[in-house]
């Protein structure tokens, strides 16, 4: 078994933790090995083994041959204390510490005033399957978790936001929700980015938040479904967050189906996961993405997964643009400029012009957030600019609606449109993001058929 690498910074946000073990220490599953120095969560060993190296950014553990199922339990305490002690963080992407999100940190006053817990079960990034599978396998556990969190956060109501296409899972939820009036579900259309935090608030509550506002401004907390399960594990099983579920998919031997792995030890390498899925497809691959196709980043085989990692996607090989002039349209839904430039380089294009989607508002920390996620502000002006700059190709990372708008004028102007997710979408057998034919609204009655999937299919 390969060495396990526990990063001291497990989420995209926050500060690295400080190790509390030394080289040579024996550790068990669940042994506390690092504690926060600022914004962050406890890190526990995900295996039995020995600390063999402590680097600036990680603790390396050599696992024992024997890996019993038992783990070191976190001490009993209040539900909130146990979530904190277990090192639970948001598994929807950024990895924000959950105990901070659901508690105001000062007094006994809850963070919400009779508000809402919005459970993000949209599994927004295309091609992923582990969230819905988890709910499908044990929906009752999800509901228990929602109640725990509602109680801590001071919510009267829980809403599970889930895409309408997951009919079987929704039926299972509905059967339980009949007897649980505090929780309801809200059906989402199958378009990107339904899982964006403020999109969830808008869809469920009808409140459009400014880009710099948190869901608390709408008296709500948005929490990823897998995070809810982790809270249940902390509270009911005294289990720290040491393993997680994820989807491995793409140019993998045996086909494009999703490989869902459950309870994967945090710190496992990308390589080990790809091997476990069957190894690379012999036709080769373009890049390996850690995370979803829209918001993930290119990664390497030796990189370890963190508590916040949801997917490993292996894309189709890049085609060669032979240095063609390429425009970059940066928006808040897809990659940032750096990521897009990286992609243009991998395609062997030459960046000739950069535009920003009108709604990609820049935040004080330099990141961008969409002003109205999923609702396009128009793109033809950008296309005119690309054309003027002599671009042959443009690469976009836009949502379903904006991609549709780009397509309404781009190709007619002679711009060849590449979506940043194309190679991943081809690899997972998902329609490319181009034109939008489905409605952005779905009927909340599960039996009303309102979405006809006729998006462009994979070539």
């Amino acid at each position, binding site marked *: 078994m390969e060495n396990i690498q526990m990063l001291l910074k497990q989420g995209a946000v926050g500060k690295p933790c400080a190790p509390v073990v030394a080289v040579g220490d024996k550790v068990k599953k669940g042994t506390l090995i690092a504690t926060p120095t600022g914004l962050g969560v406890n890190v526990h060993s995900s295996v039995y083994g020995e600390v063999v190296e402590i680097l600036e950014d990680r603790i390396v553990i050599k696992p024992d041959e024997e890996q019993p199922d038992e783990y070191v339990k976190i001490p009993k305490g209040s539900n909130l204390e146990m979530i904190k002690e277990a090192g639970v963080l948001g598994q929807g992407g950024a990895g924000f510490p959950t105990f901070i999100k659901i508690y105001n940190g000062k007094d006994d006053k809850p963070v919400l005033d009779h508000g809402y817990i919005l459970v993000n079960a949209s599994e927004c990034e295309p091609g992923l399957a582990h969230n819905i599978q988890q709910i499908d396998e044990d929906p009752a556990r999800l509901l228990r978790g929602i109640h725990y969190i509602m109680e801590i956060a001071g919510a009267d109501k829980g809403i599970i936001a889930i895409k309408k296409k997951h009919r079987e899972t929704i039926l299972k939820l509905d059967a339980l929700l009949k007897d649980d009036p505090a929780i309801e579900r809200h059906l989402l259309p199958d378009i990107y980015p339904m899982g964006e935090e403020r999109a969830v608030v808008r869809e469920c509550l009808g409140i459009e938040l400014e880009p710099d506002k948190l869901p608390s401004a709408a008296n709500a907390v948005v929490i990823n479904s897998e995070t809810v399960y982790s809270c249940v594990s902390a509270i009911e099983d005294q289990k720290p967050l040491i393993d997680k579920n994820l989807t491995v998919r793409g140019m993998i031997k045996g086909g494009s189906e999703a490989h869902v792995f459950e309870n994967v030890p945090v710190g496992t390498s990308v390589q080990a996961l790809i091997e476990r899925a069957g190894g690379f497809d012999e036709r080769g691959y373009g890049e390996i993405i850690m995370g979803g196709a829209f918001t993930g980043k290119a990664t390497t085989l030796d990189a370890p997964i963190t508590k916040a990692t949801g997917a490993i996607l292996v894309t189709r090989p890049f085609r060669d643009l032979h240095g063609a002039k390429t425009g970059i349209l940066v928006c808040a839904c897809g990659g940032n400029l750096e990521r897009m430039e990286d992609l243009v380089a991998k395609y062997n294009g030459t960046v000739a012009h950069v535009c920003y989607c009108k709604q990609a508002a820049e935040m004080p920390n330099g990141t961008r957030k969409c002003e109205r996620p999923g609702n396009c502000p128009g793109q033809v*002006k950008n296309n005119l600019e690309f054309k003027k700059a002599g671009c042959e190709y443009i690469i976009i990372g836009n949502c379903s609606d904006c991609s549709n708008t780009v397509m*309404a*004028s781009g190709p007619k102007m002679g711009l060849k449109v590449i979506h940043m997710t194309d190679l991943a979408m081809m690899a997972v057998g998902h329609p490319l993001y181009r034109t939008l034919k489905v409605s952005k609204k779905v009927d909340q009655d599960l039996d009303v058929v309102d979405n006809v999937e006729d998006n462009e299919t994979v070539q």
Partner: protein
Amino acid sequence: MSITAETAKQHANDPAVLCCRAEAGTELTPANFEDPAIFPDLVDSGLLNLDGALKLGQVLNGSKLTKTVDSLTPITADIVDKFDAAEGAEEAAPAAEEVVEAAPAVAAAPVAAAPAAGGYISLHIGEGKNIDIQIPAGIGGGVAAAPAAAVAAPAVAAAAPAAAAEEEGEAVVVREMTRKHYKIDKVVLGDETKIEGTTLYIREAAAQEGADGQKLVHSLTLDVITPDNYHTYTETVMDIQPIATKEDDYELGEGVTRVLDGVVMMVTGITEEGIQVGEFGSSEGYIDENMMWNRPGAVDKGEIIIRAHAVIDNKKNMERPGPIAIHTAVDHVTQEIRNAMKKDLTDEQVVDTQVLKQVRRPGKKKIVIVKEIMGQGAMHDNFLFPTEPVGVLGAKPNVDLGNVPVAANPLEVMDGCIHALTCIGPASKEMSRHYWREPLVYEAIHDDDVDLVGVIFVGSPQANTDKFYVSRRLGQMVESMNVDGAFVTTEGFGNNHVDFTSHIEQIGKRGVPVVGFSFCAVQGALVTGNKYCDAMVDNNKSMSGIENEVLACNTLCHEDAIRGLAMLKAKMAGETIKAPERKYTHAVKESNVELIEKAYGTKMELVDNEQALPMSEKRKAKYD
């Protein structure tokens, strides 16, 4: 791009076109619509057909889509449940008599109504005779809103008599200076610099001395080009300079200036490898084919040209120290001539005397001229306020001053306070001589309807952040001047249009009407725009609307100044400036000239363009 309610209102009479896909049942709001400012481009490229499109004003009153339609679909009667009747289009466009059109195409600036914040609220009733009502707005703290009736006396320190002039006062001469002209009809290179009669002798060795003083200058050579030799090949012309000097210890803009008539200094330069010291093209070639004679900045036909030609280090042609070294070396020669002028010339030799007066006209509309000068570094720099007219000594480069706005009085401008180092496109470059004869300053100071308060020079820095830094300072400076109108001029095109339009915005948003001057035409269309850029004078003279590398061809001339003044007066009176046609056409200028001739009862003589020159091989190959 989706539009705001305000934009939708401005474009109520423009076609309604969806910016994005919208589903059946959607109640239409401004956010559903594309900005009409870009429609012409879309129509041109075949992306949009506006036949049968309803107007924005017709479909924003609760109209709902009856069909799901895609981005860039015009709203037609068959896809909405209801729409309002079209409003009378005639009423919307009053047939005003003295409306002057804006010239250049502003790519994306939606035409906006006069800003209501600060300044005046202007009501315009354009029925038959024009009635303009101006109400002091008195809103917007800090915004200068001088009541129209009582204009305070101009506060010019040097002008004690001005205090007496109240209200509709007499024109006040704030200061004056004298230009004494001396005729030169022969220039001889020799062993001594002196003036004997009408012959100028220049010590030839002075040139190499000038070069020796500059590390980067390998050689500086002089030669004399007389009118019969205008068909002489020359490297790119970096500058045309008057040869002038101050009498006694007078500073620029005061006392007496001596100037030589019939002769000018011409600076040219290349690197050792033979690369021209220029950026966007260069004017190298035969002088008679590449010099737009008699432009304010150019050589007048018939003048003797003293050519000072420098060869500098390789690669220094695009770095600031290169051009600075050339100009400094040349000034070593010119200064020797100036010294001879001080020593040798007597009043008996004066052939003409001009008294230049700075006149203020209390009670008239106060205006300021803002001249954007290049300050991006490299060869884009200007020496400000030298001791001698268009000298080097005592001057400060505007790049070193941080390109911040600097105030000058009109006489300082006409007395050579700008030594221009700029080497942008030859056709739109303002040479040092241009400032010496600046037509806009000349016309403004002679216009009885306006009160020119002064001239501001503001540099055009390289970085965008710096551009906005200086234009914010400019806006504040103009606000504090309490003016009724402003001109903003620029030279070149492209990069500098970013700050040019920002200057206009900073002034415009303070409620001060602005008219801009720039070469735009076909090649130099503004790269940015804002709603205050609705009154523009295009300096283009070239037939094809391009930077044709003919020196000074597309610079600001008297005819442009007159058009600009007419436009600013119209704007200050609250008239609407009609948007230009989308594609550049000479017709805009022609119809404006016609309007002005009709209104003023005068005939405007328009200058020649490059078509009056012998065709050069370069022009034949590249341009015409």
